[in-house]
């Protein structure tokens, strides 16, 4: 994790039991309480954000890319069951 200056403050309340538990865990981890909480919170936040950041680019072989580009405006033949799925969409009983 990149080292940054911890100059902003976050204040939050916890129960006495949780506070004692966190202090004990920080001691075991040989860390201050604030360092312990900060490192855990940042780690979880990074995990969540990277999980939600979906892959934005798909890279494919040039031959397939070029073939796709050559026929990009030519639609494929539509299979009959696609018509059924389309028709079924309007028959679904939804709210």
């Amino acid at each position, binding site marked *: 994790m990149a080292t940054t200056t911890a100059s902003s403050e976050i204040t939050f309340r916890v129960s006495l039991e949780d506070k004692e538990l966190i202090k004990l865990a920080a001691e075991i981890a040989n860390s201050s309480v604030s360092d312990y909480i900060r490192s855990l919170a940042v780690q979880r936040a990074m995990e969540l954000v990277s999980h939600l950041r979906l892959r934005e680019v798909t*890279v494919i072989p040039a031959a397939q890319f*070029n073939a796709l580009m050559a026929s990009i405006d030519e639609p494929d033949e539509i299979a009959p069951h696609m018509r059924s799925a389309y028709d*079924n*969409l309007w028959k679904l009983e939804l709210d």
Partner: protein
Amino acid sequence: MSPSLPSPRSVAYNSTIHEVNSFDCGNESLNTWLIRDAHHARLMGTANTYVFVKDSQVIAYYSLSAHQLQSDELPNQLAHGAPLAIPAYLIGKLAVTKEVQNQMIGGSLLIDALLRLCRASEGGPSARIITVDAIDAAAINFYRKNQFVSSPADQKQMFMKMSTARRIVTKG
């Protein structure tokens, strides 16, 4: 220009009004995406999620994102001016709850997604390709049956041309 295509049947997922905690499609990661992540993805602007709702329960969903399809090689000089990459849409997730599986809802859900993308692209610049990441063999079969084609490099990466999608939803 107002869209000439009909409105999709799905609605935008709203975590304050849609009940999803009991959603179970049989795949834990797809369940978790809807129950835990879809709301955050919308806030982050990475994906929008749309749902089919029946009897106040979400029975199916999909998520859509802006995407890009890229060639793995630079075009040669003869192909000067050819694009290296084209704008695409990504159907990132698509799932149907167990209770209503095998009722053709998955296929119609996919049509709903195509319809939504085609409406979004009417009257302006738009993506040229729709991509999906099929999560397993069953998903590959599902998308293949529904006219997506696999990349030779990775059969889980699958594509449909927007022109094909437009033909499907206009019954052209």
